[in-house]
């Protein structure tokens, strides 16, 4: 008798991988939490988090958007204006330090910086430079929008049962004078780069862990029941300032983030880790989940990852009830009756 003898097939490479077609592989995740269809789930982080939000919504889960678009805005334009991409209009929160920064603003533990970028008469939010196509039309508009998003982020923290966060980057840009962080290097999407003020920091494991722990602690103070599901974005870096080859920098960055997520999930009962990163990036899938640029995750990859998310939940906690299709509404009845009355002979 040895400790490996009674392990399930998923524990062995031969039975879990080598003897299986890649699309038959399963049991990648042993979820800690039974996510109920009625429980509030919010999603933030790097761009991959938006796929999780979409999949939750499409599968009848209670994914919450706390910042609604103007009524009538088409789905396509909602995306352009970054509505319903994450649970508030934060844009990508790439690093754990940015997550902590947003949390501190939302819970009024730190002031929101005054900095606004102006270009060609349009106004840009340095903390969400891509949020509004072509920027805002006035200083007042950008500040109002910023406060709306901070309020929506606060609501997300306070009302969420599950807070899904996708860790994306270790590389970051900070304002060395005031200490706050930008999600993107000034001068890339908007703003002007100033080497006397804008400093590159490639964050290390301990700092990333510390920032994530602080953010989790702050959120728990206002919402003791909140639970976290961490993922690591499988999307490689677009560019690196580290001096390394972008592929090497990507691997280093993701490895550190993966280790942080592991540490958090292993040591805390209220934190889980979902392995979307492994599913997309593992050599067992031979890169088939990437677009030809080897960076963007293709729809098959997203679908496969999310089908694993739901199947693992069902394997552990039992099947979810089928989502019922919407019944004919009373309004539809009125419409039918009105015509019948007018046109019946």
């Amino acid at each position, binding site marked *: 008798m040895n400790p490996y003898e009674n392990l399930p097939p998923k524990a062995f490479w031969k039975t879990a991988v080598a003897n299986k077609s890649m699309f038959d592989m399963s049991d990648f995740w042993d979820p800690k939490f039974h996510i109920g269809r009625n429980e509030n789930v919010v999603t933030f982080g790097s761009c991959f988090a938006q796929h999780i939000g979409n999949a939750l919504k499409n599968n009848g889960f209670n994914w919450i958007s706390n910042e*609604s*678009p*103007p*009524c*009538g*805005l*088409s789905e396509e*334009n909602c995306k352009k*204006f970054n509505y319903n991409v994450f649970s508030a209009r934060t844009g990508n929160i790439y690093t754990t330090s940015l997550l902590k920064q947003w949390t501190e603003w939302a819970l009024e533990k730190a002031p929101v910086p005054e900095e606004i970028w102006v270009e060609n008469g349009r106004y840009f939010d340095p903390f969400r430079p891509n949020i*509004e*196509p*072509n920027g*805002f*039309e006035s200083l007042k*508009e950008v500040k*109002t*929008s910023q406060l*709306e998003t901070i309020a929506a982020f606060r609501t997300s923290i306070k009302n969420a049962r599950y807070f899904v966060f996708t860790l994306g980057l270790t590389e970051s840009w900070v304002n060395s004078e005031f200490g706050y962080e930008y999600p993107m290097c000034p001068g890339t999407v908007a703003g002007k780069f100033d080497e006397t003020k804008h400093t590159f920091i490639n964050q290390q494991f301990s700092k990333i862990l510390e920032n994530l722990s602080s953010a989790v602690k702050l959120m728990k103070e206002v919402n003791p029941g909140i639970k976290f599901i961490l993922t690591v974005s499988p999307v490689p870096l677009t560019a690196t300032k580290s001096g390394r080859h972008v592929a090497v920098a990507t691997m280093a960055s993701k490895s550190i983030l993966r280790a942080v997520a592991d540490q958090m999930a292993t040591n805390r009962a209220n934190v889980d880790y979902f392995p979307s990163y492994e599913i997309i990036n593992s050599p067992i899938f031979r890169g088939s989940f990437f677009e030809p640029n080897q960076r963007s995750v293709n729809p098959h990859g997203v679908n496969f990852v999310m089908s694993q998310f739901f199947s693992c939940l069902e394997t552990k906690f039992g099947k979810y009830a089928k989502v019922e299709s919407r019944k004919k509404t*009373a*309004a*539809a009845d*009125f*419409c*039918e*009756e*009105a*015509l019948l*009355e*007018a*046109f019946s002979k």
Partner: protein
Amino acid sequence: MSSLLIGNSHVAALKQAYDAQKIDHNLHFLTIHGNRLLPNLKIDETGALQATNEEVRRELIAQDLDSVSLNTFDNIIIYGCRLRVIASSRKWISKIKSTAKPFSAQALHQSHLDFIHTTSHYKFLIKLQRANLNEDVKIASIPAPYPNEVAPFAQGLDRVNHSEVSKIMNIHKSEVETVGSTFLDTPAALLSKNGYTTHKKFKHKGEDDFSHLNVKGGALVLEEVLNFIRNNAPPQMAAGT
């Protein structure tokens, strides 16, 4: 003069008013309730209406409109089919209430455009424009009626940004005109005091039906339609000779 009125359940009140008048204006009706008609109706290269599903095909045959060229009509009027109220009259109230929220001017403007462009009504106006019908075929567009002022969901309109709602109204007119149609706005006599709902005296008899007009309301819209037809008539016909 021959005219075709295409629409959804809102046409019912007009039809009842039309029948009550007992005057034949040679007005033909093509209707299916909900949003099932226009998305499944196309116009072929000869200008004839073609159905893309069985329900619409049956309706075209029932109205003797199957494969009939739209060039045989002098006027084509599109009524309702979600223009202005989009998915439901409740949505119109949400739309105008949302104007009071602090959205960016750019996002609001885009939402006003999308509010029109995503309707089957507007999309069909584009199909009509692309069909290259004879120049003397005149096309008019009438938005769906506003929800009735007594609707529970139509309360609380004090929080509306009136200048922003005016923009929505103007955009409707200009977008419809851009695709070659005449915009016939909701008759002022139908409106309640706030200007964004239908006056309670035009409420449909159905207790919980806050969307449709009664026959009196239908008569007011019908009058707009008939005025449009008269205005496009050759001079001697318009004068009634």
